[in-house]
């Protein structure tokens, strides 16, 4: 077993110290430290269930080594689910039944949230491009698109932003 090392990283706005060996992925490391909102699916970049944001950019945590996030900030679904001020995506997904088994949901929200920062009024094409790395086996995607558009509308009106 290779040696573990402590790495400082900000997770959902809080400074944390994680321990990991050199060959551990960020996915395995986060789950070992209790972040079960980060899901493990294919472990090879195909499904997007493991998506997290590093310095605001969505990446697949199964293709990221834990040591490489030293000094950076990581956002998981829990970072969008502030009890006082949940992200409008969360309400929209609940309202439209965009969550069935829910396995893909954390990754989809992480990917959608980043897109909404770049494209406040996304077209279907924008959403398709942004979510093409997230597989959902339940919903058929239609309800996800509807919810993302509704959340975009709420954000444009300044909702969920104070």
């Amino acid at each position: 077993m290779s040696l573990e090392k402590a790495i400082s990283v900000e997770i959902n706005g809080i400074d944390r110290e994680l321990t990991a060996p050199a060959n551990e992925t960020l996915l395995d490391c986060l789950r070992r430290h209790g972040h079960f909102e980060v899901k493990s699916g294919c472990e090879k970049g195909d499904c997007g269930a493991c998506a997290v944001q590093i310095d605001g950019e969505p990446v697949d945590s199964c293709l990221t080594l834990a040591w490489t996030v030293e000094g950076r900030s990581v956002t998981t679904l829990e970072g969008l689910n502030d009890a006082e001020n949940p992200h409008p995506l969360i309400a929209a997904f609940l309202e439209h039944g965009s969550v069935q088994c829910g396995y893909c949901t954390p990754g989809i929200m992480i990917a959608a949230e980043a897109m909404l920062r770049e494209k406040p009024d996304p077209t279907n094409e924008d959403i398709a491009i942004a979510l093409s790395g997230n597989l959902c086996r339940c919903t058929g995607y239609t309800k996800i698109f509807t919810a993302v558009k509704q959340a975009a509308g709420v954000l444009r009106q300044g909702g969920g932003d104070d």
Partner: protein
Amino acid sequence: MLREFELDLPGDLQETLTRLPGGTPLAGGTNLLVDLRARREEAKRLVWLGNIEAFRDIKIDKAHVAIGGGTTVGDILRNSAMIDAAPSLVGAARVFGGQMVRNQATVAGNVCSGSPAADTVPPLLSLDAEICLASSTGVRSVPIDSFYSGFKKNQRKQDELITGLSWSVPGPSTANLFYKLARRKGDAITVVGVAVTVTRDGDRCSDARIALGAVAPTVFRAKDAEAMLTDQPLTEELIDEAARAAMAQSNPIDDIRASADYRRHTVHMLTRRLIGQAWRSLAGKEADK
């Protein structure tokens, strides 16, 4: 769990170069980590490139584009000047993987992956890009057209790092296009990729480049076809003849994604379509002059 390996995290370029002998560069990891997990890759020591300062920077001026060794496919998409500086590369970036892979995958890593289906390579060949290589003993630059020597073989020495890629901005009388044929738009491996560059001078084509992906052991330029178009007015017949020559130069395989015959056929069709499209778009501009 991944196989065990050492992981170096050098803080700058100089340190990276001294760590490279015997080590394997790790950029986005979208090839390397997948291969390590599948036990196709045996690297003992990885050298992480993510701490090199300004390694993702893109510089675009009127005539010239330079991207860094760490520029990602997502960076290409987000740079608004890129659509004029490298239309075909933006086309490839749009249909590359999914959002997370695009944010991780670097252009240099794609070039090094050596896959004949690597999507940024036909565009880079059609733009006649130069690859900048550095080691602790010096730097050199290699035209991408002479970089590949065979399936997954290239001119990069073990201790060399790609520090950037550069090319000239296509002028107003040049069109540059890419088309990826795959089962769906995003996150699918390319069946056939075609990139073309056409420069128009009055009623003639003064220069043409045609780069084909996934139809030979490496991405390559169909130079027979290019030569047929150079210094000619591009009629429908000539374009079709050149597209057939491109097809004749390709040497595809049968695999689960498509048969060799289908790939050859689509090289003919896509080359014809893209050259025609490029030529007609320039006709419009000529008329405006």
